[in-house]
């Protein structure tokens, strides 16, 4: 099965993202940071001066590479949210050494396959 599916990149078909107001993003949700689909692991707001408008500080982990990305933007801005499709698969057989190669989102004998449409 693993031979047929590419785990590192998704299939970038049509309409791979949709816009969402920054303030409506949630921790554990997804967002595109620096062109990469990321899972949001940290979200905080700040403002410049007491009468300034809110800015959102986002930290995300690339869902494929695990690399960390950060961005800061006005909370009124629209951000791109990747269309993530998630499938859970049951692992039925391990060959020697395969376990170590699984992405770290694995729980026990299950792993998730994330894919950008």
């Amino acid at each position: 099965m693993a031979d047929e599916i590419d785990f590192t990149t998704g299939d970038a078909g049509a309409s791979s993202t949709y816009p969402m107001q920054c303030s409506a993003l949630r921790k554990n949700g997804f967002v595109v940071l620096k062109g990469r689909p990321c899972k949001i692991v940290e979200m905080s707001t700040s403002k410049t001066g007491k009468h300034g408008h809110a800015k959102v500080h986002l930290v995300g982990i690339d869902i494929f590479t695990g690399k960390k990305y950060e961005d800061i933007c006005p909370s009124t801005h629209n951000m791109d949210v990747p269309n993530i499709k998630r499938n859970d698969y049951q692992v039925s057989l391990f060959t020697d050494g395969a376990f170590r190669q699984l992405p770290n989102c694995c729980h026990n004998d299950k792993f998730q396959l994330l894919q950008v449409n």
Partner: protein
Amino acid sequence: MNNASMPSTYSYHLENQNHHLLFASIFWQTLACSILTALLSEFSSSSKTSNIGLSMEFHGNCKRIFQEDDLRQIFMLTVEVLQEFSRRENLNAQMSSVFQRYLALANQVLSWNFLPPNLGRHYIAMFESSQNVMLKPTELWRETLLDIRVMELFFTVHRKIREDTDMAQDSLQCLAQLASLHGPVFPDEGSQVDYLAHFIEGLLNTINGVEIEDSEAMGISSVFSNLITVFPRNVLTAIPNELFSSFVNCLTHLTCSFGRSAALEEVLDKDDMVYMEAYDKLLESWLTLVQDDKHFHKGFFTQHAVQVFNSYIQCHLAAPDGTRNLTANGVASREEEEISELQEDDRDQFSDQLASVGMLGRIAAEHCIPLLTSLLEDRVTRLHGQLQRHQQQLLASPGSGSIDNKVLDDLYEDIHWLILVTGYLLANDTQGETPLIPPEVMEYSIKHSTEVDINTTLQILGSPGEKASSIPGYNRTDSVIRLLSAILRVSEVESRAIRADLTHLLSPQMGKDIVWFLKRWAKTYLLVDEKLYDQISLPFNTAFGADTEGSQWIVGYLLEKVISNLAVWSSEQDLANDTVQLLVTLVERRERANLVIQCENWWNLAKQFARRSPPLHFLSSSVQRTLMKALVLGGFAHMDTDTKQQYWTEVLQPLQQRFLNVINQENFQQICQEEEVKQEITATLEALCGIAEATQIDNVAILFNFLMDFLTNCIGLMEVYKNTPETVNLIIEVFVEVAHKQICYLGESKAMNLYEACLTLLQVYSKNNLGRQRIDVTAEEDQYQDLLLIMELLTNLLSKEFIDFSDTDEVFRGHEPGQAANRSVSAADVVLYGVNLVLPLMSQDLLKFPSLCNQYYKLITFICEIFPEKIPQLPEDLFKSLMYSLELGMSSMSSEVCQLCLEALTPLAEQCAKAQETDSSLFLATRHFLKMVFDMLVLQKHNTEMTTAAGEAFYTLVCLHQAEYSELVETLLSSQQDPVIYQRLADAFNKLTASSTPPSLDRKQKMAFLKSLEEFMANVGGLLCVK
């Protein structure tokens, strides 16, 4: 061993020292002072006292003997030395260092925590910290401390060294202690008056006409604060009138001056905010002083209040009216710093200051209310003009880059503070109480109501778009209503700027202030309830009383504001939150809700929210949840049946429909992780929590039935989303909220429905967690959210045993289909199932997280109290871990947890007594607990608050294990070598059980035992407890 032997040996040395010290060399003086200081620490029985293995009682006796005799001699000696120093001119460095040591010694004596003649249970408090001790010596100190020369000496000393930062701290602390003198040292009121008069004279002589040093601010404010807190009002007013006036004038002057210096500190961003702290303290003293109209005639403090109020306003306004952000030399500083979301809002950070200033503003309402009005009206006009200029500029050259916002920011900051002060002046913070219009404000409005033209007042109120001064006769309006209308004018300028597409120029902070104020105001004034007041102002009653056009208009206006804010400010979380809170305020009282639902806007809002379309779905989840709560609350306003039907069709049904549409799709399993689907599910779950939050006794029947339909489906979702923790948590949260808000109202069969649903939820959760390991070593608290929520759910289910309103089961009349004949699931089943699930997941490491720890112990205590009979039936390893948890809780957790564990022991021991099995593991466990509680009560220092819980557990355990108890007593007695102590202990133990022999689990005997235990503690408690 003679208890008194220790102090008496010192007396001899002291007397000798007395004579020689004054003439000794600096070396000897320093040495003597060090010895005395160490001596004081040793006798003070504070945390500084070293652990030398002597009983508390011994420490107490020594301390008492010491404080009456030697301590006084040390003080007199110190006074003499200080006298000598104060006379000398030009002290060299070495001498001043000695001087400083003696001053610190004097401070130590004056801060002595005097033991009362009868120690009683105080021995326990003896070793508590000695912070903020007020000076309350015994009668023997009368001659020493009431000697005016002593007090004068400390003033003299302070005048001499006030420029020395370190020494001034000590000398002011001495003065602050002398300012707190009270108790038996004063033979009568006259002597107290004399003392106070002299003290105030000395104080005024010391600080009047001199420039206060930075390092003096805190100390001086403590002196004032102590005088005002400690001396009774009748003593304060008994001193010569002129002196008292000078005192209050001086307080006023200092308050204003400290306020200005505090503002400077803020501009300079100093780390050490000494003036701010001193200012806080003085404002607090004002609050104590003015809240007494028995001793001071009305208006006594008005002029002072005006001054303090004015200076506060001045410090918070920009130039030219005020001095905000001006450094000492008049230069404006302006910095745009990054402010994180964790920074507290001014209204919370400065709530104490604002409360005092608001109170002073009420006292001087005649001055302050018109002042705030005119300042606000002026700012509104300027803000309007400024925004218009910006708009023209933008129209003239679109995209011309950044505009300097300095003028706008200054206006926003002015308005910010003016709104905060107005909010605190016009209304109180209320939590759980019925908010009332402050009497001063009411009186002020009534007093002027004859000069007021009601129609013009209503016109001012109802035309926020126009300048107040453009309305003819604007000066004959009710001032309080005009102040409110000034804020509505700010709000209107904001709304218009939004309509003109200038939102980016507006301040979200000001937006927040506006809705915060309106909420505070609406709670107190909107639909004012005449029954709550002796007399009511006619303008208030006409403008926002029940059944008035005014109130209907205001409700409509506020609703429009809410809707506009939710649309425009969805990106500003705090502002949206304050806005939705205003909405809840509008609908949470039935009378107001009746007006709200008459607005078409309200129905539009409901429909819009049900459609889950922009802009409302941009709002954060917590705001959406509260919005749902408000919409549900509004649905219980008075409507005819058809309208009500229609409303629920608009609000609740779409929620259900959308939800069913999503989950009933054939391919739901496949698409459930798609963002869109997940969002829909999350939004529904959040809404369900909001609905549960809206539960009140009169709507629980409808809401429960509605929510129950969802709960079953939610369990299905648990399965679908088992690998998506945030969704699982949200599902459990729905159950937690339903149980929390509704279980207390549910009758038997409804409760059973809920128990069943919860049990199924737990079963699914358990199945999905089987074999799951949490491998993350850096796990944080929020990763155990599910565990916390499960424990919360179980605790909520159990709470029905304590709080149950369902006897008055009228709410479900017509809904309940007879009694539940075959009760299939009980609370015990669910909770014990849950405990079986939770206990193995808890570990000692997890108990390090405070929230998990507290919830866990709350849960197990509830279980022991409610189902003690189920405890022995637990599987062996669970039973063991439960007992171990109790032991751990009693020995190494916080005192609250310890208290909970003690409370759990009583029902467990009672259960054993009932079962009469002497070989059960619970019986054996309780024997171990007897020893633990015995040690805790008799041998260890423990919190006095715990004595009752410990006593009850102790008695029940003693009943159960009488032989073991006798053995414990025997062992303890046999280890005593001193025959006197042996006898006292033996007698005390005999007396302890005398009233309850043989001990039996009878309430009367138990109470008698608890009483004896108290005497026992007072009598011998200090004997065995060792420091």
